[in-house]
């Protein structure tokens, strides 16, 4: 080998090396001089991944806690596709067929959507993770998944009006979901992490991490089994009497805890978007009606509490028709002279009106307000109505006699059951509630509801007397015989009210109701049943009474309530 050749062989690599280094140097200079900040930012952006971690909405349980779940959140995905990738790979038909089979979507629509050069095509929103396993395994090209969550109600229709639902934007839009949204929603977290060239998260180079705070869990006062009993009884009465609606509440008389609250028509919480406003209305708190005879208990309680009459006071019932202030007031059955006790048992309108007149309108109004008529109860549910109770200054000459029998006044079922709870618990108006406890995701108790007595309305003596007299309503000769429960003494009152229509009262449409408590001697629970526009009978005693009986009979077993005389 000559020297020249050796030199030549060394020269070329040296030149190449110098050129390479000069090139790199120039590139380095360009990177660092001039707009290098944007370059750094671009590189940083590639190396960092910012991911929001979706907070899980809290669960809702019945009064027995985690054993009975009423609402929970599942992980889900929005399934989307990149049509360009799919069509470039020529697998439009295969992907469309698979997706169509998986989600039961029309094949033609999918093919049209996927066979394009677009970069985004939404296939289906809110698909639970559990339903995507086969799709994950199939690894279809161009099909992507976006994290989300889905609110599920495993009991479907059960307790729909109390639970409410969460809309597609994750906002509670009815019931507890709406009222307790701030507790349930939680707070999304953020994860800033560093990734390698293959977009894999690097554990050792993890960046900022704002932890996710999951929503708090809520325990209700509702008993799932009692709720089911109530709902089934309402379904049966709706079917039997072809009613327009029916609603019922079961409440603990001493604490105001609502054990069941149901309204018909109902809807499936998992398909809330397909329901009408009428189905979504919680009639137990959001529908006002003239209560009819169930309202008489207030006039009698007032009269006893003010010592205006005794239970043995005789009052003339005018043989069923009484001309007062230019208008006739009738009883459904003609009676002569009746004691006040019998007047309540037989639900005499004339006797009750006369008692109310003896009380006087101002005093009677004071008691009505004390019983909570015309005011919202303050239950922890949205959409509660206050009812209608005009000021005495606006009353006409017959208002007092008509309000006493439950006409010219409108209440919600929750207000009405409140009146009977007051009588049952010895005279205290208690505030009803549904939310018992709220516990944060880290186990901290945020809220624990205790019984809240609003005021004393009547004395213990009056309450006791009323309990005894109301128990006679379900005895032989009373209007509420069909509300009896074998082995237990039931106290309560029937109500049959003509529905108010424009310019008067309907001749065909009634509201039938029964409200009472059990056991009469030592009340534990109060129950109200209201049936709107029943057919094949319309009396409170015959339509609502049996429903009360059915609910009470099973509720005392579910709740292990012993007969009061034991």
């Amino acid at each position, binding site marked *: 080998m000559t020297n020249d050749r050796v030199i030549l062989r060394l020269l070329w690599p040296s030149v190449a090396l110098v050129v390479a280094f000069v090139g790199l140097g120039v590139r380095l200079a360009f990177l660092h001089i001039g707009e290098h900040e944007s370059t750094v930012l671009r590189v940083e952006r590639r190396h960092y991944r910012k991911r929001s971690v979706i907070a899980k909405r809290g669960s809702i349980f019945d009064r027995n806690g985690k054993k009975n779940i009423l609402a929970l959140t599942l992980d889900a995905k929005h399934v989307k596709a990149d049509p360009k990738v799919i069509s470039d790979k020529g697998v439009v038909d295969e992907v469309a067929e698979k997706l169509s089979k998986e989600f039961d979507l029309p094949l033609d629509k999918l093919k049209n959507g996927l066979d394009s050069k677009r970069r985004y095509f939404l296939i289906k929103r809110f698909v639970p993770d559990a339903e995507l396993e086969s799709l994950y395994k199939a690894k279809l090209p161009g099909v992507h998944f976006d994290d989300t969550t889905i609110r599920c109600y*495993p009991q479907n229709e059960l307790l729909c009006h109390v639970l409410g639902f969460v809309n597609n934007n994750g906002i509670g839009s009815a019931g507890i979901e709406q009222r307790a949204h701030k507790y349930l929603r939680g707070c999304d977290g953020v994860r800033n992490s560093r990734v390698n060239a293959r977009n894999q998260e690097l554990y050792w180079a993890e960046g900022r991490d704002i932890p996710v705070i999951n929503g708090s869990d809520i325990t209700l006062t509702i008993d799932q089994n009692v709720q089911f009993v109530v709902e089934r009884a309402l379904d049966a009465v709706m079917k039997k009497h072809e009613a327009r609606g029916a609603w019922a509440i079961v409440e603990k008389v001493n604490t105001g805890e609502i054990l069941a609250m149901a309204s018909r028509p109902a809807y499936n919480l998992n398909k809330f978007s397909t329901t009408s406003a009428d189905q979504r209305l919680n009639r137990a708190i959001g529908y006002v009606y003239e209560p009819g005879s169930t309202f008489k208990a207030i006039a009698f309680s007032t009269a006893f509490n003010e010592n205006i009459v005794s239970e043995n006071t005789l009052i003339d019932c005018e043989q069923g028709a009484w001309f007062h202030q230019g208008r006739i007031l009738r009883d459904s059955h003609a009676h002569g002279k009746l004691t006040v006790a019998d007047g309540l048992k037989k639900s005499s309108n004339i006797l009750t009106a006369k008692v109310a007149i003896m009380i006087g309108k101002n005093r009677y109004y004071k008691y009505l307000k004390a019983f909570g008529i015309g005011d919202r109860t303050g239950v922890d549910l949205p959409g509660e109505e206050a009812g209608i109770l005009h000021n005495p200054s606006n009353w006409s000459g017959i208002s007092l006699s008509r309000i006493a029998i439950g006409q010219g006044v409108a209440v919600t079922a929750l207000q009405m059951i409140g009146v009977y709870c007051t009588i049952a618990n010895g005279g205290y108006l208690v505030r009803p509630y549904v939310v018992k406890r709220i516990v944060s995701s880290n186990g901290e108790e945020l809220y624990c509801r205790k019984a809240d007595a609003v005021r004393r309305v009547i004395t213990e003596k009056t309450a006791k007397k009323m309990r005894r007299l109301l128990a006679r309503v379900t005895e032989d000769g009373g209007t509420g015989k069909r509300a009896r429960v074998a082995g237990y003494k039931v106290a309560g009152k029937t109500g049959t009210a003509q529905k108010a229509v424009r310019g008067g009262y309907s001749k065909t449409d009634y509201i039938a109701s029964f409200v009472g408590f059990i056991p009469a001697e030592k009340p534990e629970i109060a129950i109200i049943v209201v049936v709107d526009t029943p057919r094949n009978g319309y009396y409170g005693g015959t339509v609502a009474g049996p429903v009360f009986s059915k609910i009470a009979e*099973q509720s005392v077993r579910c709740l292990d309530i012993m007969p009061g005389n034991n």
Partner: protein
Amino acid sequence: MKVRKRKNRKKMVYAYSKPAPFVGIVVVVVVTALVYSYLVYSCQVLGDDIKRMERQQIDLKNRYVNEEYRWTEAKSPANIDAALKRHNIVMTWPTASQVVHLNSPTVDKHNIASLDSTLLRGSRLAGTVMND
């Protein structure tokens, strides 16, 4: 006969001994580098493991919630009722005379429950819930 090995006097040995501290430093640097590499590698492996387990934990949690949902759905009163109907099982509440109530301050709730269940088993009325 013993053969004597002659030293090759022409052989040139180009070697010189390094000072001991220098060797020590080099050894320490090398060992430190090796230990560091080993630790980095171990940390990466651990990090990967943690990542994998975190993913696994999330998966298991999701599966647990899904199963919880299915289970709750399966044991909902409406489903139990439907299942009873499907199998033509008619459940009845015990009559008032069949119900035994114990009401004594000396008997605690726990004992009542066990006694009740014993009685129910005896009268073949166990598990009567939510029926007409």
